[in-house]
């Protein structure tokens, strides 16, 4: 029996301290140990990081959570002796383990289970079997047909049928053709693509190779965010391994099919998620969208036929070819097949990556898997689709997850960001947050987006500053419709969605800001004042010590006072007061 101790070392794990855990364990190791220390990617249970798994042969016998360097001795002892009771105190609870057992994993099927830097690990998990089958026994048309049967649609947000894009690129006669992967994951609050590349890079390569064969591409390019250094390292390494194993390059697996792959690091521009802007950026230019048609399938990268899909879309491809399109289509709803990965974050108890079959409800994800709201507060809304999406309120929690049903709420499926908000989040502030983002990221090519988002941002800014006027809501609505209709690309056309949905579901919050100069969530700093209730204040000096602006004064054991001119409204006094003496209005 062989014992393996595997540390989860995705970006989130490292940020939570996985590196310190590794250092501490390594320091205890002697020359010969009866177990091996290994590494894996992101299992997606971010709320429990750092995570260490103990395996006996291929069976997971313990999952240890929130591990610190202090736990190293117990872990080493348990792995040496096989006495797992030594790590009982840090073993995952049954309740938390359900976070994973309630999911259905296809795109994430290897994440957190294999070593992302090992081709052998990937092969042992059925890796590159689909590629071999495709290259040796199927025609490109049959591959496209299988993807059509599966019902796979673009996971980057738009939900366009994948087979249709592949077929259009296949039909284009010009060569060379390019297959491009959009790994620019710009939606703030989404990190599923990063997890796939970091934790299972060969799955992306295999999916892309199958796509390249289907459309007849001779080169593949992955456009990755520069903010994802670990993903770039792992993918670079995987490409080298695949080249050595004759899975990339000339005459792949002796089948006569040749295809190369390279990585282009993005430089930070949200609009580059739009496919024609991405192509401009690949060509070394400012990432500004092109007019369509011609579509990339006809004239894309350097005017050659090109096909662009998102990381998660490719991550499903090898599974579909191994298991059949029908098995994929058996999951989901009438118009949305298969599974979808969501990055569950915000005021949620259990945040992380969730992959579930389409057709589950928002409630299943947020309350079933995510465990509901943190800190005993009330659920207010969930934001889906980032700057292109919208906020869905509590009474629509039973909406099923499919492209059509989510679209009907005014939000979108999007790339999978799911940010949960509680009663303390101001919805006008949320709309302003997204407009700040899109106004900043607007490339400036078309007037409706460049000027329209700026005007909306100005109106929202004055509303949250307590300077809103009657008619502002109507003006916003009018601008929204104009931008939706008039903007050149997806960024502009969807930029009004956060404003439209918050007006639709939380109009009363806008009215409270404009008419009563009040922020119902007590979040907008300009509409919030802090003072101390002299009857409740015991003069413990805690607030004065915590105040980063030195705005609080007072003698010990005497009621303290806040200087409103110095106060930066950081809320430290309120959150640290043991006597509930801070009044926020």
């Amino acid at each position, binding site marked *: 029996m062989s014992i393996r101790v595997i540390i989860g070392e995705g*970006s*989130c794990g*490292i*940020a*939570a301290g996985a590196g310190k855990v590794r250092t501490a364990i390594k320091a205890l190791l002697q020359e010969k140990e009866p177990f091996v220390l290994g590494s894996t990617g992101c299992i997606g249970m*971010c*709320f429990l*990081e750092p995570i260490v798994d103990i395996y006996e042969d291929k069976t997971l016998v313990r999952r240890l959570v929130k591990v610190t360097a202090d736990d190293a001795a117990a872990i080493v002892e348990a792995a040496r002796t096989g006495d797992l009771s030594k790590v009982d105190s840090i073993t995952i609870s049954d309740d938390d383990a359900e976070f994973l057992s309630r999911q259905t994993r296809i795109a994430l099927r290897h994440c957190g289970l294999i070593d992302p830097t090992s081709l052998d690990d990937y092969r042992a998990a059925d890796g590159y079997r689909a590629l071999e089958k495709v290259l040796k026994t199927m025609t490109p048309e049959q591959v496209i047909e299988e993807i059509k049967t599966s019902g796979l649609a673009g996971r980057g947000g738009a939900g366009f049928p994948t087979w249709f894009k592949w077929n259009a690129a296949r039909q284009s006669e010009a060569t060379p053709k390019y297959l491009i992967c959009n790994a620019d*994951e*710009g*939606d*703030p*609050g*989404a*990190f599923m693509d*990063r997890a796939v590349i970091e934790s299972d890079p060969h799955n992306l390569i295999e999916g892309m190779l199958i796509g390249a064969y289907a459309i007849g591409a001779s080169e593949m390019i992955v456009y990755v965010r520069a*903010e*994802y*250094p670990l993903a770039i390292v792992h993918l670079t390494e995987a490409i080298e391994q695949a080249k050595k194993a004759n899975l990339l390059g000339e005459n792949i697996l002796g089948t006569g099919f040749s295809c190369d792959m390279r990585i*282009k*690091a*993005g*430089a*930070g*521009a*949200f609009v580059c998620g739009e496919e024609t802007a991405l192509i401009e*950026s*690949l*060509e*070394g*230019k*400012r*990432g500004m969208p092109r007019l369509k048609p011609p579509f990339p399938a006809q004239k894309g990268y*350097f005017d050659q036929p090109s096909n662009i899909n998102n990381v998660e879309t490719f991550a499903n491809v090898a599974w579909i070819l191994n298991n059949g399109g029908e098995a994929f289509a058996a999951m989901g709803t009438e118009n949305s097949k298969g599974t979808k990965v969501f990055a569950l*974050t*915000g*005021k949620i108890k259990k*945040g*992380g990556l969730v992959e579930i079959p389409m057709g589950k409800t928002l409630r299943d994800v947020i309350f079933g898997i995510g465990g509901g709201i943190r800190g005993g507060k009330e659920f207010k809304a969930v*934001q889906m689709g*980032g700057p292109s999406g919208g906020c869905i309120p509590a009474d629509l929690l039973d909406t099923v997850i499919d492209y059509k049903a989510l679209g009907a709420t005014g939000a979108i499926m999007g790339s999978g*960001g799911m*940010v*949960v*908000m509680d009663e303390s*989040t101001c919805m006008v502030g*949320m709309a302003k*947050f997204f407009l700040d*983002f899109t106004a900043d990221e607007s*490339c400036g090519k078309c007037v409706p987006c460049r000027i329209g988002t700026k005007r909306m941002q100005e109106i929202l800014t004055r509303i949250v500053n307590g300077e809103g006027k009657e008619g502002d809501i109507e003006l916003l609505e009018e601008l929204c419709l104009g931008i939706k209709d008039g903007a050149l690309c997806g960024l502009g056309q969807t930029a009004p969605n956060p404003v439209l949905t918050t007006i639709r579901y939380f109009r009363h919050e806008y009215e409270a800001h404009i008419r009563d100069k009040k922020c119902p969530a007590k979040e907008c*700093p300009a509409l919030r004042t802090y003072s101390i209730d002299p009857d409740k204040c015991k003069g413990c000096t805690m607030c004065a010590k*915590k105040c*980063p*602006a030195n705005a609080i004064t007072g003698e010990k054991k005497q009621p303290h006072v806040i200087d409103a001119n110095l106060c*930066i*409204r*950081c*809320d*430290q006094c309120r*959150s640290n007061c043991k006597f509930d003496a801070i009044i926020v209005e």
Partner: protein
Amino acid sequence: MSCNCNCSGPKSDLSLLKDVLDRYAGERGSLIAILQKAQEIYGYLPKDVMYHIAEKIGSTPAEVMGVATFYSQFRLTPIGKYLIMSCQGTACHVNGSERISAAISAYLGIENGQTTEDGLFTLEHVACLGCCSLAPVIMINGEAHGNLTPESVINILKDIRKKEGVEA
């Protein structure tokens, strides 16, 4: 090759760029990659460096400047020893990133994009860092710090100042 950009700033050592320019010579669409390498070398993109690149790749200064100002990764001014990237992603926003940024600004006396007078810290607001479950998050020279409060973030900065021998 002397700088012809008429700037009064310090002159950069353009010979450091030779390997990069050789490596990408004749490769179309490589401007962004060249600028990324240049920024690795100089820490930012000095004006004379951009003029030099334009000349070497047969482009115009306007085009190089256009690309450099389009992408958020590129900086046109030098940065401090410690680069504080303060995440402004959605999850961080919902968890109070504004309070974190305000506390940093109040403590260091700099706003987004500025560097402290002693050259120690630069504050940069960035889009999502992708550690959403640890929100609110900042990254200092590549190291992530999560689950911050306005107080804990100041302590992190105080520790750095102490390490650097600056009075907190």
